[in-house]
């Protein structure tokens, strides 16, 4: 495969940030590595990354769909079954509003969750380097780069005394950091 992956594991935030800096110095662009952690850090902690996403479009679409569904169901029922009840108009708007409202919100909610999953690329079934220690609190820095630069990446990751460094063919182990 054209892209090789290297995963550096760091025990604490400082070294992880140092590693990110080292990578940047070594000429890796921000899009070439991602940081894996077990809880969010303030955005941009490891340097500015592209935060572009379309999440806010989803609820709007969902709301539109939900509203339409509500309108169809309520309007449709009343028009296709013209049964008089309690002298209410055959097309009573107020009850329609209530159900259309619920429909709108339901649509918005469902689509938002879909959007969240989509934007965070879940469910993820592809294979990528990962290590359970990350959920234990270690911070992982995953570099995706061309095979020829793999060594360079490993060096950069080593600079910030990593706990461990994994490549696709197993661990390269820790080596004393050259400062």
């Amino acid at each position, binding site marked *: 495969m054209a892209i090789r992956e290297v995963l550096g594991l760091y025990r604490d935030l400082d070294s992880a940030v140092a590693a990110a800096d080292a990578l940047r110095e070594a000429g890796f662009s921000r899009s070439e590595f991602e940081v894996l952690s077990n809880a969010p850090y303030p955005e941009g902690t490891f340097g500015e990354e592209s935060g572009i996403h379309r999440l806010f479009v989803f609820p709007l679409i969902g709301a539109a769909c939900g509203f339409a569904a509500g309108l169809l169901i309520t309007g449709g029922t009343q028009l296709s*079954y013209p*049964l*008089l*009840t*309690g*002298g*209410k108009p055959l097309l009573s708007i107020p009850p329609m509003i209530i159900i259309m409202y619920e429909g709108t919100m339901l649509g918005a909610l469902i689509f938002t969750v879909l959007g969240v999953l989509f934007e965070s690329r879940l469910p993820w079934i592809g294979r990528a380097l990962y290590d359970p220690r990350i959920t234990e609190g270690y911070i992982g820095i995953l570099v995706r780069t061309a095979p020829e630069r793999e060594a360079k990446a490993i060096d950069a990751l080593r600079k910030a005394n990593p706990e461990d460094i994994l490549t696709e063919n197993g661990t390269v182990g820790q080596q004393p950091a050259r400062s």
Partner: protein
Amino acid sequence: MPRWGMVIDLDRCIGCGACVVACQAENNVPINTEDTYHQRRAIAWIRLERYWEGEYPNVKARYIPVPCMQCTYAPCEPVCPVYATYHTTEGINMQVYNRCIGTRYCAVNCHWHVRFFNFWEPKWPDSLKNQLNPDVTVRSRGVMEKCNFCVHRIVKAQHKAKVEGRALRTDEVQTACAQACPTNAIVFGDLDDHNSTVSKLLAQAEREGRVYRLLEDLGTDPKVYYLKKIDLEAAAEPAAAH
């Protein structure tokens, strides 16, 4: 298109309860045993309410037969989630048994207490099995039922008229209760037909100022009209019932 209505002349009513019995027989209403009464689950599409008036020794019993009012703007109708009760074009507040799922909201929102729920499976003694009216459904457990102005009679009459290729004659149809009433206190007919007995009675009673309806102020426009008693104490009577 007729607009069915009923006039009940309390001046004529003697509280004999014939209407209740007739209704039971006509509409396959299950027999109310003593303990269904004690459970307050007795079913009587038309019931006879008795109010005592005055102090002993000069106590007066006041009777008022209460069928379904067939309100034009019936509160019980829109609250049904499944259209089990709705308004026919002839102004009857209809109950469709096999749509009913028994939320009982209609009964909660009927302020004349004329909607009844089948808490138990209806039963008849064997002796009465053959007496059931073939024109009327036997309701199952868990559905609401109520007076519907003997709609099966109306339909039958209309069908007959159609076959004979004529319009429905004035006062051709009678409900069971009206038919059974020995003093003709209960009269049934088309309110829009000026020759019908109900219209005439109403017109006359209007002049005497005897007409009133139950819970009229709710603005539901009931189609059952009551005529006050004529005697002097009667002034108090509606106050007791209304």
